[in-house]
């Protein structure tokens, strides 16, 4: 190029001349530098069109309609950035463990690893964190799985549990709001955020559940209590990851190839609230889970089905198993194995880990003999910090070949297993070790 047919004519009456242009590759790249700048402009003047629900919470509180359970300096919060560039404060201490039914029932190494780390940080059970019996699950599994349940019931369960979290401080000799809820489960996290949104938006829903909570004696000054932030445990792990890596890591994991599966209900439900960090996957993928693996120095391997669901499907994993196993094999396990050649797949949620862990073996039935160890980011971190694979990380409950990973990390599986088997004899004799003083566990009958 370029043929300038109107050379010298310019535009009507204005004489001008010009020369041909052909940018060199370097010039071209320079000209388009603007697209390489990582400027997050999601927040530009979105006004009311991109609502931050937290703003409305403050208004409701001002109106005297609700009490916001605040994150204060006591909770030693760390600021992080969410998808839209909004700020989120993640408390690091004085936490009320809101457990996950799937984890506790099925992957107990998950909650034990969380508490193990808190103890490592010098947290005092009963003061810096609390694990009590006065809590139910969010019940959202049942809701999503069978539709037995409804928004009102979910909202009442949410408020009941979080009211307990709020008043537990008082019950244990501190101020109201001393303990801030830390949600262990991805679905609970997503569900609570969604329900909180409905509660803030709908006066009618607030009115209906206020009646229920009133009947239960779960109001404070006649008001509902709603937490300032809903915090997922892997967000807590995200903000303490460097502390873990620098102060507690004992095992080099730089030879470990890690794939990460981020839970849908963590970053796809109310997605504006999920954490993104420019230093993790260029800020292009949600940071949690991956950030822990990277902080420990493991090799994080990307794979083509990163964004895919695990195939859990709530009711599917129980009664439509054909779907769950087919999906998880085709879109997760096979890919992590064949494509990424990973040593482990790390999850950040209950359902995903159960799905991927339990549904590998059946692949053998149809020549899909792919397997890969599955565990939570926190379990992997605990292993890297020297936690016992059985007593703490509780890998005995996993169906996937975790032995392979443990051995590759330089830990003797056989030895650990022997130790654990003798420990089981001690347990039978009543000599049980605790991470947590059993007396403090009870929140009353």
């Amino acid at each position, binding site marked *: 190029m370029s043929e300038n047919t109107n050379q010298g004519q310019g535009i009507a*009456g204005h004489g001008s001349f010009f020369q041909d242009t052909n940018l060199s590759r370097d010039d*071209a790249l*320079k*000209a*388009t530098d603007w*697209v390489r700048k990582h400027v997050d402009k999601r927040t530009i003047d979105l006004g009311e069109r991109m609502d931050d629900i937290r703003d409305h919470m403050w208004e409701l509180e001002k109106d005297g309609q609700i009490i916001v359970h605040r994150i204060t300096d006591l909770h030693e919060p760390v600021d992080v950035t969410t998808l839209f560039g909004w700020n989120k404060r993640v408390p690091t201490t004085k936490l009320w463990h809101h457990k996950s039914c799937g984890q506790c029932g099925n992957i107990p190494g998950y909650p034990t690893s969380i508490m193990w780390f808190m103890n490592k940080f010098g947290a005092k059970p009963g003061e810096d964190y609390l694990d009590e019996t006065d809590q139910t699950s969010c019940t959202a599994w049942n809701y999503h799985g069978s539709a037995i349940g409804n928004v009102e019931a979910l909202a009442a369960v949410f408020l009941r549990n979080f009211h307990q979290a709020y008043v537990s401080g008082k019950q244990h000799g501190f101020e109201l709001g001393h303990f801030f809820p830390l949600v262990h489960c991805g679905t609970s996290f997503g569900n609570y955020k969604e329900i909180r949104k409905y509660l803030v938006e709908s006066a009618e829903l607030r009115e209906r559940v206020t009646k229920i909570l009133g009947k239960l004696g779960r109001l404070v000054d006649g008001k509902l209590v709603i937490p300032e932030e809903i915090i997922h445990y892997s967000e807590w792990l995200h903000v303490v990851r460097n502390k873990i890596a620098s102060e507690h890591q004992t095992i080099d994991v730089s030879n470990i190839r890690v794939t990460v599966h981020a839970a849908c209900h963590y970053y796809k439900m109310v997605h504006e609230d999920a954490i993104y960090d420019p230093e993790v996957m260029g*800020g*292009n993928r949600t940071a949690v889970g991956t950030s822990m693996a990277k902080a420990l120095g493991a090799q994080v391997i990307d794979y083509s089905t990163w964004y895919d669901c695990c195939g859990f499907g709530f009711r599917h994993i129980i009664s439509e198993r054909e779907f769950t196993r087919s999906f998880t094999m085709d879109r997760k396990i096979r890919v992590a194995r064949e*494509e990424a050649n990973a040593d482990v797949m790390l999850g950040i949620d209950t359902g995903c880990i159960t799905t991927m862990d339990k549904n590998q073996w059946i692949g053998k039935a149809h020549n899909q003999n792919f397997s890969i160890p599955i565990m939570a980011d926190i379990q992997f971190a605990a292993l890297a910090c020297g936690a016992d694979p059985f007593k703490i990380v509780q890998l005995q409950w996993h169906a996937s070949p975790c032995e392979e990973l443990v051995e590759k990390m330089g830990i003797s599986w056989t030895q650990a297993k022997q130790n654990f088997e003798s420990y089981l004899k001690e347990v039978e004799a009543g000599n049980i070790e605790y991470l947590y003083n059993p007396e403090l566990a009870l929140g009353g009958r």
Partner: protein
Amino acid sequence: MSDTVLVVGAGPTGLSAAAGVASVGKKVILVEKENVLGGAPILSGYAKLVPSGEWAKDAIGRMVKRVEGDSNITIHKGTKVTKVDGDAGNFNVTLSNGTTVNVGAVILGTGFTHFDSINKPEWGFGTFEDVLTTTQMEQMVATGKITCPSDGRVPERVAILLCVGSRDRQIGREWCSKICCTVSTNLAMEIKELSPTTDVFIYYMDIRTFGLYEDKFYWKSQEEFKTKFVKARIAEVTKSPDGRLLVKGEDTLVKRPIIIPMDIVVHAVGMDPNEDNPEISKTFGVGLEKHGFLERGEHYTSTFSSTRRGVYVGGSALGPDDIDTCISHGLAMAMRAVGDLNAMVQKAA
């Protein structure tokens, strides 16, 4: 009372407005925040323009030359307007370089900002080297060779994704950016011309090559350059182990999910409101419409008025538009401003 006109922004709109005002013998103060005149087509290094097919440096360069050579026009580069006091016919304007000027009217040709693809992370820009924007791809065309940035191979397939940063409530961009369909079909032809072995696929919801751009770009790209149009909006872009990109979508005509390998994926990036608009709104005392573009005043009889009397706004500051239209806006604003000033002089007399 002053009959000097302040023109803000030296892109196609502002350059056209300045030349227009000067052409009837009035003085113009032209203020541009960058050190170079020409606006987005020059600053972002556009290659060939739609629909003329002329190189941006030639076409816009001509416009720049025209104002630079005009003694009626005083140019302030690398300068912003910091304060605008007074009313129509008598504005006292302060510039960031310390100059103060008295003008009768203000023309805003403050333009737009390209959508930053980083805000749609699931589409792979910033994650995979072979995911590019239309502007980057234009530049590749300018170098005369189509290759994958990751390893220099000639792509078998290029996918162009429409509506990146447009028609997307998730990221608060509800508008259609108007020009991307045309730009993309034009790009598809340029790619095919340079690399005949490359197949180009355009993933679309609907094609909006408005007016005469329909056959000149859309039909031509399809009929002469064999561009394939797939009715699917892509949901995610990931990478396959062989290094190729995978586009995941639903082919809504076949009603099935698709995961198709591609070698280069191009984002047809849309037009955002100028990221400085909140500041512009404050400085000039003009309103913003709900998306963040500058707000129109009454258009039918007070054409291109803003919400402040004596301040005119046009071009892509008002909303996404093509260069030709922006140039027309510029000239129309010149007419409007000079006309209104004349009326004021007559009224005063």
